[in-house]
Structures are given as structure tokens and as C-alpha cells.
């Protein structure tokens, strides 16, 4: 049964995407580390970090797509899960600084010394241990999603209302993390990281490995997401998206289905955040800003929601565009982004991948119709095959 679960995940396009990601995970670090800087094939370290950042965003977009594209929950608070994962990683990295901080306190991070704190708050304990921190990367966003979803889905808050309260959630968290006495560095967040598992964060090698890890985690999450949506559970999931009441009347516990998906998605967002922080070198409350979460929705919409590789493509494309525009024409970027939002909703409601897929399907349908014209007896198996799609 498990193997069936895995095999179903390996649909053609996912295999290609995973293969590409694994290839990138090997190739980019290799080109960065093993070629001389003046070689035409050399990839500079800043580019490795930049691409690594895109991959984290891609993972975040994938996480959102799982709930939005397949379950119909438009979360405007996924940035919160991302940031929480990032903070968990940031806390580990802060503890690794040890006595190398500005104030040289072996236990307390700089900002706590600065705020005149005497001892480590209880929720910082354990974060010097990598395994614990990594567990928290999954547990904290997962727990928040569980509690939030438990209440929201049980009381059947859906559609616009759910979107707005998820936005309120991330907004409230942002306000909370801006407070100095929360113990997460307030305004400035966590930064000045020194090393991760003993390797200096700034070193080329570490950055290359972080990049590879981002690509591998993205590939892994693609497989997990693919396994989920292609399982029987996934079929029910789409049913919840398209006709929630009917699924409920058929005897399914809709709230549990939604809750499971929401929690898995939040954990993926947490992983994305945890990989993001060491590559960018800072995490601050700005990551909780509602605008960030809305931007994630756009990446997903551009790439095509309800397709698994769509959000990945959308996130990479939009962010590459952002890097280009903010560098070359900074004042045009907001026009471009705003225009993109409008254009995608008006002209590409299915996104890039969805539109391509639609074109592909209609060509196939036309071919099938042509086949059907030739011999009526052959028509029956073709339609069956189509129905199974």
C-alpha cells in the first residue's frame, strides 16, 4: 500500500521536475565550487544564494498550492508559517553564535544583553541543539496550523472569511514579534549568524550545501504533495474544493481532511522558512507582513494553482523578475507586479502551467475526437481512458 502511495506520486511531470531539481542540486554547487571564477560556466556565490532563496519561495508557493489549489482554502497567512519556521532556525543560529557576539555573552544573544535580560527565556531552551530546532521548524508552524484549523474548519469558516482571519492571524503575529519583550529580537529580528552545524554560514561551501538542501527539500516536498493529491485522499480533497457540502453528505469528515492538508502545508512552509534564513542571513517580523503572504498567492496564481509544478515555476519566475526589475528599474517594479496581478486574474485564471495543460488537453481531445470519427467501436475505450485522467 505504501509502495502504491509512492508510485502514484511518480507521475511523468513530477518525475521530470524532481530529476531537474536533483540535477540542479548537484550542478549549481559544482559549478560554483569547482570552476575558476573567470570561467564562463562559473556561478558566483551571490547567485547561488539568490537561486536558493527562489527555491525556498518555490517551496512556500507549493505549500500554499496544496491548500489553495487542491483544497480551496485561500490562506492569506502562509507567510506566518514560513516566518515561524525561519524564526526556529534563526534561534538555533543565534545560539550557535555563543560568545562571539558583540557583548560576548556565552548564553544570551546580543539583543537580550542589550535589553538587560538576565537569563534565557524558557522558550529559547533546547534551540542550541540542531535536532530539536529542526523538530521545532515542523512543530511550531504545524501546531499553529492545527489549532487555528481545528477551530476554523470545525465551525465551517470558509471562503472569504477564512482568508481574512488568516490575514488577521499573520498580522497579529507581526505585531507581536515587533514587540521587544516577546524575546525574539523585536524590530531587528535575528541576525549576525556565525555558523550552522559548525560550518561558517558565509562560506561558499556552506552556501552551496544550503542551496542543494533547498533543491532536495523542494523535490521531496513535491513528491509528498504529489503522493497526497494522487491518492484516494487527494480525490476527496479536490471534492472538498469543488463541492464541500456534497463531500460532507457522502459521509466524509470535511474538517479533518482540511485540517490534515492545512497542517502538512504549514509544515512545508516552515521548512521553506528554515532553509531561507541561513541563506539570507536575517529573519525579522517584516516576514509576517500580510503583503508578503498575498505575494505568495500571486506566485501560485501565476504558475497555475491546482498543478504542483505551477507554483514552483511561478515563484521562480516572479522572483527572478523582481530581482531584475528592482535592480534595473526600481520605480517600475510595483507597476509590473500590480499589472501582473491584474493580467493573471483576467487573462490567465489557470496560470501558466494550467493554460499550457489546457491547450495540451484540448489538442488531445481533438485528436481523440478525430479517432472517434474513424471508427465508432474504438471510441468507447478512449472516453474511458479520458475519464480516468
Amino acid at each position, binding site marked *: 500500500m505504501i509502495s502504491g502511495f509512492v508510485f502514484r506520486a511518480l507521475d511523468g511531470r513530477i518525475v521530470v521536475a524532481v530529476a531537474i531539481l536533483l540535477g540542479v542540486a548537484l550542478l549549481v554547487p559544482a559549478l560554483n565550487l569547482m570552476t575558476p571564477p573567470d570561467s564562463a560556466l562559473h556561478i558566483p556565490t551571490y547567485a547561488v544564494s539568490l537561486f536558493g532563496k527562489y527555491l525556498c519561495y518555490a517551496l512556500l508557493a507549493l505549500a500554499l498550492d496544496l491548500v489553495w489549489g487542491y483544497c480551496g482554502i485561500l490562506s492569506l497567512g502562509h507567510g506566518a508559517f514560513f516566518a515561524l519556521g525561519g524564526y526556529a532556525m534563526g534561534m538555533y543560529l543565534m545560539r550557535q553564535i555563543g560568545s562571539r557576539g558583540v557583548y560576548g555573552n556565552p548564553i544570551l544573544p546580543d539583543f537580550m544583553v542589550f535589553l538587560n535580560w538576565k537569563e534565557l527565556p524558557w522558550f529559547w531552551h533546547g534551540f542550541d541543539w540542531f535536532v530539536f530546532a529542526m523538530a521545532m521548524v515542523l512543530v511550531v508552524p504545524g501546531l499553529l496550523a492545527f489549532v487555528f484549523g481545528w477551530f*476554523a474548519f470545525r465551525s*465551517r469558516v470558509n471562503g472569504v472569511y477564512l482568508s481574512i*482571519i488568516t*490575514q488577521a492571524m499573520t498580522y497579529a503575529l507581526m*505585531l507581536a514579534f515587533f514587540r521587544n519583550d516577546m524575546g525574539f529580537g523585536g524590530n531587528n529580528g535575528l541576525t549576525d549568524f556565525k555558523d550552522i552545524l559548525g560550518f561558517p554560514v558565509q562560506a561558499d561551501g556552506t552556501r552551496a550545501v544550503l542551496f542543494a538542501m533547498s533543491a532536495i527539500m523542494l523535490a521531496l516536498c513535491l513528491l509528498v504533495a504529489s503522493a497526497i493529491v494522487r491518492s484516494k485522499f487527494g480525490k476527496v480533497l479536490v471534492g472538498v474544493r469543488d463541492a464541500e457540502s456534497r463531500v460532507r453528505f457522502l459521509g466524509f469528515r470535511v474538517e479533518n481532511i482540511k485540517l490534515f492538508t492545512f497542517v502538512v502545508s504549514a509544515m512545508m512552509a516552515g521548512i521553506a522558512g528554515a532553509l531561507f534564513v541561513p541563506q539570507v542571513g536575517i529573519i525579522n517580523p517584516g516576514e509576517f507582513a500580510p503583503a508578503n503572504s*498575498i505575494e505568495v498567492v*500571486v506566485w501560485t496564481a501565476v504558475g497555475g494553482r491546482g498543478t504542483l509544478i505551477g507554483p514552483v515555476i511561478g515563484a521562480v519566475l516572479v522572483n527572478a523578475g523582481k530581482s531584475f526589475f528592482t535592480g534595473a528599474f526600481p520605480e517600475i517594479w510595483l507597476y509590473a507586479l*500590480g499589472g501582473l496581478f*491584474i493580467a493573471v486574474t483576467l487573462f490567465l*485564471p489557470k496560470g501558466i502551467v494550467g493554460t499550457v495543460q489546457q491547450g495540451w488537453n484540448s489538442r488531445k481531445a481533438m485528436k481523440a475526437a478525430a479517432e472517434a470519427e474513424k471508427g465508432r467501436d474504438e471510441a468507447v475505450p478512449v472516453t474511458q481512458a479520458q475519464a480516468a485522467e
Partner: protein
Amino acid sequence: MTLKSFLQALLACLILSFAAPSFAQSDPKPLIDALAKADFNEAEKLLGQIAATGDARVVPALNAFAEGDLYFRKSDNLVFIAKAAGSGFELIDPLTGAAAGQAAKNAVTKIKVNNNLRRVIRSAMGGLTLLSPDRAVRLQAAEAVLRSPSPENLDLVEAALAKETDGEVKARMEEARAVSVLSSDRSIDEKRSAIETIKNLGGRNSLGILNSVSGSIEVGLKGDLDAAIASIESEQQLWDMAQNVWYGLSLGSVLLLAAIGLAITFGVMGIINMAHGEMVMLGAYSTFVVQEVIRDNAPNLFDWSLAIALPVAFLVTGAVGLVIERGVIRFLYGRPLETLLATWGVSLILQQTIRSIFGPTNQEVGNPSWMSGSFPVGGMTITWNRMWIILFSMSIFVALLVVLKKSAFGLNMRAVTQNRRMASSMGIKTPWVDAFTFALGSGIAGIAGVALSQIDNVSPNLGQSYIIDSFMVVVFGGVGNLWGTLVGALSLGVLNKFLEPSVGAVLGKILVLVLIILFIQKRPRGLFALKGRAVEA
């Protein structure tokens, strides 16, 4: 030096001098001149005597003493106020203020002053001005004593009280006397009536005075004092409550202003209008432009600038709303989550446009004269701008309600909302009703922007700070119901202000958000939910 012995000496002097029938006639001149050779202790006593003369002419000399501008001439030990002039000093007679010639630098010596003396001088001056012929000065002096009572002033206050004829000043002096009595060593009965007077006075300041003496008060008075403190505290609590409610209503009316346009575009039409905040921002910028034009062309009309800005903002934002509806939103009806994306895009474009035209910094929007200032009501202060904003938001609410319920357009609008196809069959041009409904919602947001420009920074990010709050208000109040928006806005405002004193502003806001999230679980359709078929549509 023991303060007590000094006080006793001072009191003795004061009482002696007051006992004399015409104390004001004793000449302060020799007392001032005596300062020349006095050490700090003696100077303190002399100051008491100078104050006891009740002669207002000594005020400049005392001032100069405190400032360190009082000198004496070595040749004859006469005291002068000296101002540095060239290489020497310009001498001024300490009492008359007449010029008294020049002196070389080494011909005069500064009379030393220390902080203790300065304090004595301050309280002596407070007492002296109590006797001023000018009513305003006396009132001020009485209030100064009231704020910082000291037993040294008591006799002066009483002397002044005896001579006072003006009712208001007299009342103030009574109170000043009462607070001074408490810290003096007067009899218990006198103190008891003083406590009574202070209790009737009420207010935070009285509470502070009573609390400050509660450690040193006689045992017999402890009960009276505690009763008075409790009475003032309970009264204070009432006023605090009233003040909180007022602040809450004021915040609530700001929320109402920000949300009421959204109650139409989101609540009635079902569009998740993320560009709503930008409409508010456009309204604020319209105000700015109108004020700039008025400043340049007709400065005397400035007090009318807001009245002029209102229709301008309504038309500008209404027109922008119309364009957005015709250009983008009409293709997205029935897909509310996608209107969110498209209008978010619109909001980014509007923000960047304003940023390109006006720059990213805050713009200066002036307050007309009738909006500044404040007036007291009992124990609280009400500022005019808050007052006007509350009135303004209420009148917008009423006007909108009238438009929706009484006008033909409102009727069409409600018909389209309830049953689009039926309305269309009856000959209502539904696309235009949609367009103008959106324009109306946007225009109202623009009007709100005019009001909010008075209390907030006018920058391209103005709208961003209101958008989430506005959605919270509409969702909390119940979508599609203007009354819900009103009740939602006011109750969130009051709740926020009641949480603020105990948990702080930011935490209060977080708590309100959490409470709304929990509330939505309980009532997923808000306070005033629409019932019937419209719910499922």
C-alpha cells in the same frame, strides 16, 4: 541646618509680620541689603522676612537672586541687580528697577545662591504673587500653590485669602490653603476640614496630595483621609471610564470611516477590495492638493478647505472606482477570491503612482482653526478634531443609510444584490448599478480620507494601515449590513481602548485580533448575519 528649626523661625517671623496691622508697609530695602553679608542660613531667614513684607516690588530682586544676578558693592555693601556690560557691570536698583550706574568687575561681589535657597525663593515668590493686584496673576499663583503645596506658604495664603474678594480666586485659594494645611502642623480639626475641601475638589492632583501625606498624617485623621482617598478614587474611576469610552468612540468612528466604504464594496457587492485603503489614501491626497491650491490662490478660504475637499475627494475617488470596476472587476464577479488578487494589483499601482507624483514622504495637511483646541467636560478633556470626526462619521453613516433605503439608486442596488437576474428582467441595467455601487463605495472611502488626513500622516502607505482593520470591522459586524459595520466599528474601538491601559497598545491590538478570530469561529457570519438565501449566494 535643621529644617524644622528654620521653619519655626520662619513661621514666627511670618506670623509676627502678619499680626502687624499693615504688614505691607515694612520696608524690604534693608532686608535686601542685609543679604550682602549673610551666609546661606541667614539668607534663608532674610528671604522669609522679605517674603513676609508682601511687597511685590521685591519680585525682580528675588528672581535675580535665584539666577545669580544679585551683587553687592564692596564699597558700601549695598545690593544691586547687575548685568554684565562691557568689561564691568550695569547696576540696577533691586526695588525700583532704576539704573544705578556702572561698576568695575572687581568693585562688586556676587551673592552666592544654592539650590535650597532657590527653592525657598520659588515658594516665597508663589506667596508674593498671591497678593498681586492683578486677578489673573493671583489665580495663577493660587494654582501654583495648589500644585506644589508647602507649609511655608500657609500664612501667606491665609493672608491673601482674607483680602480676596473675587469668588473664583477665593475658591482656588481655599483649596490651596487646604492642601497647605495638610502638610503643616495645624490642629486636627483644621486638617479634617482641609481633607473635606480637597475631597470635594477631586481630581488626580488632589489624590496625589492626599496620598503623599498619608504616611505622615495624625492617627486620628487616618480614617478621614482614607475615606477621602476612596471617594476621589471612585469618582476618578468613573471619569477614567468615561474618558476610555470617549477615546473608544473616537477610535471606533475612525474605524467606521475607514470601513464604511468597504461595507459597500465588500459587504454589499462581495468584492474583496484590497484597493480600498488606496481610495482612502487618494481622498487624503485630494485634501492635500485642495489645500495647496487654496494656500496659493485664496489663503483666506483655508478654514473652508475641508468642505471644499469633500466633494473633490468624492468625485476623484469615485471616478477612479468607476474606472477600476469597468476595467477589471466586472470580469471577476462571482469569483471573490480573484477580485482580491486583482484589486491588490490595483492597489500596488495606485500606491506607486502617488509615490511617483508626490514622493514617498509625508505630506503636510493643515488643520483648519475650528478643528484645533480642546474643551474640558468634567474630569476629561475633549479635543475638537476628535469631536468633529465622530460627528462626521456619524453623518456619513446616516447619509449612506438614507441613500440605500430611500433613493431610487439605493432601491436598484438592493434589488441587484438580492436577485440579479430578476432585477435585470425588471429593466434595471445591472452592469451600471454595479459600476456606480463600486464608485459610491470608493467615493465614500475618499471622503473618509479627507477626515483621516486630519489625524494621520498623509503618505502613500496611508491606506495600508487601515485595510486590515477595515476588513475586521466589516467581517465582525456582518457582511452586507451597514448597522453591523456601525456596531462593529464602535465596539472594536471601545474594546481596544479598554484593553490598552492594562496591556499596552500593541498587545491590546493583538488581543482584539485574536478575539475577532475566535468570534468568527462562533458566528462565522458576523454580528448581524444576513439570513435566508442571500447567504448561500
